[in-house]
């Protein structure tokens, strides 16, 4: 298929596209949150500043909630607004609104609060160390054969840590809520990934005060990456409450420091891996994994993150004896949530680092060792799902060739012998299951709609948002190319829960894979039903027939059976694959790693729009580079980082040259792409650093402070 230009690009470039903060409504006032600055405590007293006229402010607390004070999530355990006790720093205690933004800010800044402080856990490593802190369901994948390790098997054991990561979508979170008293509706406009989640949330918090919540996304959504999957529920809920109480439209846009303090992040992880490897055949004989995530104070959607993490934690390697255990841990920090990869980047950092460690103990090149163990047709995932294609292996061989790996390994070794600065090259491979796990897509039961108008416009209705990933261009392409219809006349509509059917959330690398393929099927059905040669002519010759609406539901392939108790079966119908090589330059004087080049070869099936796909891959790789090298929250859960000044996002000067290639593109359909680019850069860089220096660091990011520590250890 061909690359068409993105439908939204020009309006965005000219500054004309409207993002949430660019909308305003008559009589609109502004809302903000007052949040806890304690990790854990019972609220004793809230004192409002004297110098303000309180009657000018609209203030809502948990008591003002007419419906339920529980955010609807996979695990319904988090309140919209704290009641008597706060369980983490940054927990929302009040919603406050006022016509003037500045006054509102000053007022909130001056609210005083007293707590009875209670014991709290804010340090991730401490939280994850102690099994006492675990909560929620334990997931076990038992693919073990209880074989006793033989004498010639080499035991390798390590514990890997990854930190919080901030999504840092460039447009902060925001919502506008407008209560309509007569119609008993709540209209909410916002920057979000999942309008139907927000609908459920607003209807939950408003209870019988409204008949319906109508949710619409803003024209532009300034990045999301998972960060706008579930937190928008809370903002929308409280904005609705404020609008209901004030009888005015209320706009809440978080400023950057609030956004960083209170919204969800990537889960910090602790992954402990034990392996036994046959020193003669170089085959991995036994793998044991203990995968732990710090969920924060509430479970919310973390059980789903855990599930995906566990299912990806074995890596792309065949082994006949695997035992994986996964569990969530509770700390007094804000709940963590979705972020591109959803538990998998943590898993791949651990397993890909571990593979290099085994290779080193066998004195093998990491390429050779991977080659011995990588998935081939007929192998099985620990969930017993069969590998039916060698595409991971193909990606792997291709990236080795593209990066000139073998030559560089030799050349760098020579360079490193005679220089204080070092050069290194490292590999990582990964996969990502498309769509919801197991039976999830069946339960979601996504529906899409196409309306062909009299004037020849083909309108596409889905609830999936375009938050920069180009979904509305790519989805339009899937329809227009199937109908052989002009692209310009095929228009994906802005998601609005009263107009678009529920085609599910914009998450889980499912938009093109599930919704796009469904739209294509619907377009094929239209073609069959209307029996046209040329749709444009057909429409003008059969005007009486239009406008005409077509709908279709997703039907799960019956062969996809997954047991959610035993974690056995087909977890994902289709996997995307990636292999990645990173090349670094290590500056020994400053202890800094400069990423030089990254190559990544993907199999994402059929590529609908090459430039958009490349852009997705490059962006995900950049976030992976940040994850591996610079991004983390310094303070122990407390206060977190205060803004973009102290949270180091990669800039144009920090980013390596990125080379992306897609293979096996002649497949029948596109698979998921959104998340997989995130999985490999961090471990590949970490492995490259080992190649350069002979130092294994089992924790990211690889900041100079950490490198110094390990260098000193090595010298001892």
């Amino acid at each position, binding site marked *: 298929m061909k*690359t068409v*230009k*993105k439908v*939204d*690009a*020009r309006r*965005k*470039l*000219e*500054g*004309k*596209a*409207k*993002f949430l*903060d*660019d909308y305003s409504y008559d009589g609109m006032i502004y809302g903000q949150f007052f949040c806890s600055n304690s990790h854990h405590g019972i609220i004793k007293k809230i004192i409002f500043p004297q110098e303000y006229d309180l009657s000018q402010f609209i203030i809502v607390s948990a008591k003002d909630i007419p419906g339920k004070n529980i955010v609807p999530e996979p695990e319904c355990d988090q309140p919209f607004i704290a009641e008597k006790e706060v369980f983490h720093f940054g927990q929302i205690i009040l919603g406050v609104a006022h016509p003037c933004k500045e006054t509102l800010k000053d007022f909130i800044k001056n609210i005083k609060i007293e707590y009875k402080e209670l014991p709290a856990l804010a340090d991730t490593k401490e939280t994850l160390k102690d099994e006492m802190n675990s909560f929620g369901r334990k997931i076990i994948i038992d693919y073990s054969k209880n074989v006793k390790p033989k004498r010639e098997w080499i035991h390798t054991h390590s514990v890997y840590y990854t930190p919080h990561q901030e*999504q*840092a*979508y*460039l*447009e*902060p979170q925001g919502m506008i809520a407008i209560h309509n008293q007569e119609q008993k509706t709540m209209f909410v406009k916002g920057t979000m990934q999942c309008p139907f989640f927000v609908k459920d949330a607003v209807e939950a918090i408003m209870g019988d005060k409204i008949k319906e919540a109508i949710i619409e996304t803003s024209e*532009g*959504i*300034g*990045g*999301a*990456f998972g960060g706008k999957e579930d937190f928008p529920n809370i903002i929308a809920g409280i904005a609705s409450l404020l609008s209901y109480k004030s009888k005015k439209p209320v706009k809440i846009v978080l*400023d*950057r420091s609030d956004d960083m303090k209170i919204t969800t992040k990537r889960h910090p992880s602790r992954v402990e891996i034990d392996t036994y490897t046959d020193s003669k055949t170089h085959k991995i004989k036994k793998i044991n994994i203990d995968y732990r995530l710090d969920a924060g104070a509430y479970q919310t959607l973390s059980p789903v993150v855990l599930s995906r993490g566990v299912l990806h934690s074995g890596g792309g390697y065949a082994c006949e004896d695997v035992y994986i255990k996964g569990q969530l841990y509770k700390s007094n920090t804000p709940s963590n949530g979705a972020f591109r990869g959803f538990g998998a980047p943590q898993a791949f950092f651990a397993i890909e680092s571990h593979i290099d460690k085994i290779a080193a103990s066998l004195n093998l090149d990491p390429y050779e060792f991977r080659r011995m163990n990588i998935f081939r047709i007929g192998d099985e995932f620990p969930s017993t799902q069969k590998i039916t294609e060698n595409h991971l292996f193909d990606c792997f061989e291709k990236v080795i060739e593209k990066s000139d790996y073998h030559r560089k390994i030799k050349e760098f070794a020579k360079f490193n012998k005679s220089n204080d600065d070092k050069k290194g090259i490292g590999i990582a491979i990964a996969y990502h299951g498309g769509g919801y796990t197991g039976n999830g897509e069946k339960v979601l039961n996504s529906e899409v709609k196409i309306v062909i108008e009299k004037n020849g416009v083909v309108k596409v209705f889905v609830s999936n948002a375009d*938050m*920069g*990933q*180009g979904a509305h261009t790519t989805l339009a392409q899937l329809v227009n190319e199937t109908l052989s219809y002009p692209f310009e006349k095929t228009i994906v509509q802005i998601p609005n829960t009263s107009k678009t059917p529920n085609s599910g959330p914009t998450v889980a690398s499912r938009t093109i894979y599930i919704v796009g393929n469904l739209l294509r099927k619907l377009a094929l059905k239209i073609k069959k039903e209307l029996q046209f040669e040329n749709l444009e002519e057909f429409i003008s010759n059969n005007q009486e027939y239009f406008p005409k609406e077509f709908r279709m539901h997703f039907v799960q392939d019956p062969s996809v059976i997954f047991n959610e108790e035993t974690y056995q079966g087909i977890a994902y119908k289709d996997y995307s694959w990636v292999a990645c090589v990173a090349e670094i330059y290590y500056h020994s004087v400053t202890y800094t790693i400069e990423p030089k080049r990254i190559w990544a070869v993907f199999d994402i099936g059929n590529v609908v*729009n090459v*430039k*958009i796909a*490349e*852009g997705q*891959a*490059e*962006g*995900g*790789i*950049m*976030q992976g580079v940040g994850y591996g090298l610079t991004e983390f929250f310094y303070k122990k859960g407390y206060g977190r980082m205060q*803004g*973009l*000044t102290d949270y180091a*996002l990669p*800039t*144009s*000067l920090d*980013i390596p*040259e*990125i080379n992306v290639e897609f293979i096996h593109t002649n497949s029948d359909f596109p698979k998921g792409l959104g998340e997989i680019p995130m999985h490999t850069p961090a471990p590949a860089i970490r492995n490259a650093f080992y190649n350069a220096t002979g130092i294994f660091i089992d924790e990211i990011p690889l900041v100079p402070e950490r490198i110094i520590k390990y260098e000193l250890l090595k010298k001892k």
Partner: protein
Amino acid sequence: MKVNFNLNNKKVSIDVDPMKRLLDILREDFGLLGTKEGCGEGECGACTVLMDGKPVTSCLVNACHLEGKTILTVEAIAKEPIGKLLIDCFDETNAVQCGFCFPGFLVSSYYFLISDGEQNLDKIKEALSGNICRCTGYQKIFESVMLACKKKQLYSHRFSLIHPVR
């Protein structure tokens, strides 16, 4: 306080709080919504405008610094020939993702094109280092600006008429 300045080639004068940020003045007093707030602390560059011909982050400029200044925002730059050329190049490579950062990138790359414009990757990286993009991984942004530099040189006769930016 009253301030007079030149905004997008027009003389304007407003009565504002001296501490009001230029970013808010543009968005609230003049309805110029193309300039975005990503951080409010001078880090992200989404609010970049040209002040007396040089890029500044408008979230760090206050009304009291504005007297007599010349401000050019994305709305005006998008209409200039070099601005249009850049927009075409960004569009060509499908560089834009969420687009929130792009008004800022347009301003910074516009400044690079008029002040230097050499088709040199290192220089471009340097020129854009004040703008953060969380979506793209920058590769296609570099590609677009390189392309714009090349086209500007190729068609320099067409751009020679442009009046210098004040």
